């Protein structure tokens, strides 16, 4: 057993996190910053943070992830990181010529109290920011929230630093997609285009972290929301904020600063959440839902109805981020599967409330936990006490899956031992079919592999 020391008996923990279901803020901020065209993320802290964040994002995307660091030393930690950051800004603009530098803080710079606002102001005043270039920033103390919080904070930082208001309303809808894959962002754009809905979406990491291999490295790949687009978002008619954890704050800021009203929606994972997204976009952009969407939706519904027998009543354990887990749980319930154990390391009271509300009728005994000590160790113990038919989560889930012989679908962040997530969306109706294909495949692969010879089936 790979996790041979995990006991079935559950004891309460108050201080020790084992096998976390989250990581820290800055990596989320770095990922969000990559969704702006020509942007070089910058980690204001020790080198290790930047190195770790670049590594995990690289492993997840198998693509270059460029970022600078303030390279704190013990000296900077005592005297503050202003000098380091000023030097970093100069060096990055000089050497790497980004359009934008997007700075996020770390637990180190937060603990010593570096004031990013003031430092960036000073850099601008001191002429360290070339004409037409931008430096944006956000605070991402690692000891608050999770990687999702960091993503949300950088989204807010983007709004704060780049969104503008001309007073002339633009007939477009802002979409804050939340922390989803580049494939998902591409799919959201396709959906909007198919609806002829004018949108501005940011962050947008498509064509950035799924960049083509052409034999030429591009420091700033073709993708990412442009400064112009982001600027115009202050003039939009509405903001659709996908994912309460990732996108609410930025949407609120667009509202408070520019009076762009907003609606917070689930990330469109699965049937019902996609239905709501499509309707919301139709309403917000004042465009009809095209007939083709009846067909797209109908294909998902078709697969669900055809495959229901393999899904009905199957128990599922999930871990990941709230914005994903909520619509995914709803999707599982639409499939008549039974969400059984759900864990998210990301805090936020609303999470367990929402999950319990969703599961009230069909899975009232769901185990759900989030925040501190809501970790995969806990999930594994729950599974030992009540086994499941399917496990969904990031790559770390495979240790549990192997030990317990559970079919496993990789979903979430990070996925560092398979490919596909960056190329094939799980949002939208087609994304729902992909999720179904994966879930069914995992369940049926186990059946095929373990069935008694007498019971091996040709057809399914």
């Amino acid at each position, binding site marked *: 057993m790979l996790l041979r020391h995990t006991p079935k008996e559950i004891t309460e923990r108050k201080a020790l996190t084992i096998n976390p279901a989250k990581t820290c803020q800055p990596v989320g901020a770095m990922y969000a910053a990559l969704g702006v065209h020509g942007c070089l993320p910058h980690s204001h802290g020790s080198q*290790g943070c930047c190195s770790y964040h670049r590594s995990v994002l*690289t492993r997840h995307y198998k693509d270059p992830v460029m970022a600078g660091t303030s390279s704190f030393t013990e000296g900077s930690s005592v005297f503050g990181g202003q000098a380091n950051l000023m030097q970093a800004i100069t060096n990055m603009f000089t050497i*790497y010529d980004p359009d934008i530098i997007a700075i996020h803080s770390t637990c180190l710079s937060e603990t010593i109290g570096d004031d990013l606002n003031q430092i960036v102001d000073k850099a601008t005043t001191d002429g360290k920011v070339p004409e037409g270039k931008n430096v944006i920033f956000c605070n991402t103390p690692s000891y608050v929230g999770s990687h999702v919080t960091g993503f949300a904070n950088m989204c807010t930082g983007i709004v704060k630093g780049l969104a503008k208001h001309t007073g002339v309303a633009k007939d477009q809808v802002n979409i804050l997609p939340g922390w989803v894959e580049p494939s998902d962002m591409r799919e959201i754009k396709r959906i909007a285009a198919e609806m002829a809905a004018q949108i501005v979406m940011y962050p947008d990491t498509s064509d950035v972290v799924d960049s083509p291999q052409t034999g030429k490295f591009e420091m700033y790949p073709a993708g990412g929301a442009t400064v112009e687009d982001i600027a115009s978002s202050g003039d939009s008619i509405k903001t659709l904020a996908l994912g309460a954890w990732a996108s609410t704050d930025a949407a609120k800021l667009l509202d408070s600063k520019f009076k762009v009203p907003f609606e917070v929606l689930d990330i469109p994972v699965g049937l019902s959440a996609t239905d709501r997204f499509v309707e919301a976009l139709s309403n917000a952009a004042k465009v009809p839902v095209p007939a083709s969407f009846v067909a797209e939706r109908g294909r998902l519904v078709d697969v669900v109805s055809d495959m229901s027998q393999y899904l009905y009543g199957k128990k599922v354990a999930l871990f990941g981020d709230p914005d994903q887990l909520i619509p995914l749980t709803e999707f599982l319930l639409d499939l008549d599967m039974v969400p059984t154990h759900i864990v998210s390391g990301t805090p936020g009271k609303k999470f367990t409330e929402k999950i319990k509300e969703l599961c009230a009728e069909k899975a009232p005994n769901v185990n759900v936990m989030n925040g501190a000590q809501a970790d995969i160790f806990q999930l594994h113990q729950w599974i030992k006490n009540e086994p499941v038919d399917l496990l969904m989560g990031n790559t770390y889930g495979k240790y549990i899956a192997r030990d317990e012989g559970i079919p496993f679908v990789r979903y979430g962040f990070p996925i560092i031992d398979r490919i596909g997530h960056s190329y094939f969306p799980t949002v939208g109706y087609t994304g729902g079919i992909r999720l179904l294909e994966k879930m069914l495949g995992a369940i049926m692969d186990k059946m095929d592999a373990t069935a008694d010879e007498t019971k091996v089936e040709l057809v399914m």
Partner: protein
Amino acid sequence: MSEEMKLPDPSTLKDEILAKYPPKIARKRAKSMVINDTKLDQEVQSNVRTIPGIITQRGCTYAGCKGVVLGPTRDIINLVHGPIGCSFYAWLTRRNQTDPGPEGPDGENFINYCFSTDMQDENIVFGGEKKLKQAIQEAYDIFKPKAIGVFSTCPVGLIGDDVHAVSREMKEKLGDCNVFGFSCEGYKGVSQSAGHHIANNQLFRHVVGNDDTKPEGKFNINLLGEYNIGGDGFEIDRIFKACGIDVICTFSGNSTMGAFEKSHTADLNLVMCHRSINYMAEMMETKFGIPWMKVNFIGGDSTAKALRKIGEYFEDEALQAKIEEVIAEELPKVEARAAEARKRTEGKMAMLFVGGSRAHHYQELFKELGMETVSAGYEFGHRDDYEGRKVLPTIKVDADSRNIEELKIEADPERFNPRASEIKLETLQEKGLEVSDYKGMKSDMSDNSLIVDDITHWETEKLIEFYKPDIFCAGIKEKYVVQKSGIPLKQLHSYDYGGPYAGFEGAVNFYTDIETMLSTTIWKKLKAPWLATSATDPCICAEYVA
């Protein structure tokens, strides 16, 4: 490139690189970029602060301490005191393989686990010691480990949590669990290197020497600075076993607390990664009288050479005969594979920018493949790693290094026992054995090769443009950057999930993997064919906006 062929002079390249930098940066970087002249003693500036914003390969002290040195030990709970990220990122990402071996499938193995105090803002404001104590208690209650290591992360140092005091208190409280701390905050030092040193210190202070049980074997050694990435250590162990050499402890691949505790009973320390572990070798020599010798098990010839050195050290004919027998059995197969692979690798160019030893050691393997290393450098090396330990006395201790504790070691009043006489050691040294010495990478590199310490992304781009190397060796952060330029990159931290690369079988694996990378079809198909045809053809090549 044949061996006789001279490398091109990279002076213009260096100039071009520096021209982009602000003057102050240019001056500083110039000292870290050395065009090798083997006839000269050239200083390679290293182990200095990374310039903010230059995009570095380097990580932090915590990574060197927890990730590199303590990570591979299976029966200790490595509890990271800090926000969640530090522990999360170091969770299983270094491919330290471990085999509970005689302890069987139920042997203790915490490597697949990640432990953290997951500090929250209130812990930052009000202090985290209480939470740390509680976490230690919970870890103990659930797992009953022999040992718990506590690692400080950046904010811990700043808010003043005393991990050592907490560890002492908990060790006492728990009674049968060795609890000790590491002040390895990420901001310390200038790279992972400081973390190695801190790890060495605390292992030496709290673990080494705790068990005086005498070993049963005849030729007892420790292998220092081998981390069992991809199973390297397993392969070296296999070879040692074939030769009749007993490994008391490896620092720290596939290691256990028990092995560390007995490591002072060995007769010889063999140092693989000089950078990360030389502190331990020196301290053990001073305190217990164990001599150390630099060896390299990367490369078929190197492995044979390393074994022979051991034979010479022990001056035992039977052992030497056995070693020759093993080499005669293994080396021809290695050489045959190399000869075969050379058909595709001969004359190709490699670059290595990685680690504190690997950039040196792996040049051996490339040599065996007939490949030339045109440029190399360390991520976190010191001058001695480039220039040899002879420069140690001349290295100025700067503020960053001064902050890293230097243990004051004295001979153990009872247990000090010089395993070899001064005279013997001198004799061995005269024979060319690197006893208590390491000659560094520079002297093994060709003239005109370019040495670059702590290479920046900008320099990487320019080097690729200039040399168009056939293979580039670095880490995961560099992998796709370099590959996007059409150059295959071999990860020398994780081996790209291959390996082992050490020892005889490892050499064969490496030859094959490099041969494979150089023969991979896709590199010839990077360009869309329609872009390759004439631009005047109206049907293709034109940009079309949908």
